[in-house]
């Protein structure tokens, strides 16, 4: 696996990890019980995808998936800004979900055609699971598409899909603090 491929897998893994954390913030407080279940399950899937992708890259670098996921500094993450935001409005959450799934689908289509059979195989597996996320996003899109607040949220968030991966929002730093707190507090000389 060349460096460029590793970088691409890391981008996707970081997106999925960070979005998984953000989606999980709806656990227990979503506006509908069914969405509480849905977002918890989607979050779980995304983090599982991140783990599988980190494992492929980690093996190339003689590291572990956890080290890649949690031991980098916040400025070393390669996620897109759209996944970093802590969104407390439902219409924005659904807008991000819809935009992200759409972009993720086209990225996975390309990855499925990779010359590396491991990358192509994993992309195909992830894509089968993402199909259910896309259906869920589509269902909400159909339901909200006439709502002004929803279309405004789509317009507001769309540029953040593609605004570069070198700069991050302060919200990523805050999330990183929460996400790595327990791991960073491990007693000296111990390992997870």
């Amino acid at each position, binding site marked *: 696996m060349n460096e460029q491929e590793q970088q691409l897998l890391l981008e996707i893994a970081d997106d999925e990890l960070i979005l998984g954390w953000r989606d999980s913030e709806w656990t227990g407080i979503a506006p509908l019980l069914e969405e509480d*279940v849905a977002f918890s399950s989607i979050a779980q899937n995304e983090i599982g995808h991140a*783990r599988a992708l980190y494992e492929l890259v980690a093996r190339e670098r003689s590291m572990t998936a956890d080290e890649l996921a949690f031991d980098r500094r916040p400025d070393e993450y390669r996620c897109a800004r759209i996944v970093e935001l802590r969104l407390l409005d439902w219409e924005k959450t659904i807008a991000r979900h819809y935009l992200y799934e759409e972009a993720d689908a086209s990225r996975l289509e390309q990855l499925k055609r990779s010359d590396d059979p491991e990358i192509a*195989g994993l992309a195909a*597996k992830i894509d*089968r*699971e993402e199909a*259910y996320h896309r259906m*869920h996003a589509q269902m909400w899109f159909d339901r909200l598409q006439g709502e002004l607040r929803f279309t405004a949220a789509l317009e507001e968030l769309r540029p953040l899909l593609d605004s570069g991966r070198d700069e991050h929002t302060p919200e990523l730093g805050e999330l990183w603090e929460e996400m790595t707190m327990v791991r960073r507090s491990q007693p000296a000389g111990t390992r997870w």
Partner: protein
Amino acid sequence: MVSEAEVWAALADIPDPEIPVISLVDLGVVRNVDVAENRVRVDFTPTFLGCPALEAMRDQMASRIRALGAEPEINVRLDDSWSTDRITPEGREKLRASGFAPPAPRVPEGPTLVELQTGAHRCPYCGSRKTRLENIFGPTPCRSVRYCTSCRQPFEQFKTI
């Protein structure tokens, strides 16, 4: 030395950690067993990548193999080779008998929302096709929640992947 058949029999005895009515062999996640001297290599394909039971499955396979007096090597294959089509006919029947609707067969173009929203899925309790989608997601990543309008029973539907 342990035989391959003994290993398969031991693995067939391990219940799925989340749906204990079926075994790991019923689930079709054990792809290959290879015995060489005292080492047993098992090729294992995860179901859903976010499934929290994957570690438990791996650990249980390793400990059963150790109990047979061999050294386990569990090789996880992160590819697209597992599908719900790999659940055995016995596994599907055990699922249905416990109130889980077995997955529909995989189709090349993948599942669609329209298909999930129509009544093609059969209620595992009364067999009616008058069922509706309640939630694409359920208590674990592999299941959806449906409702049977004939016997008024909610039930869990295995997702097709």
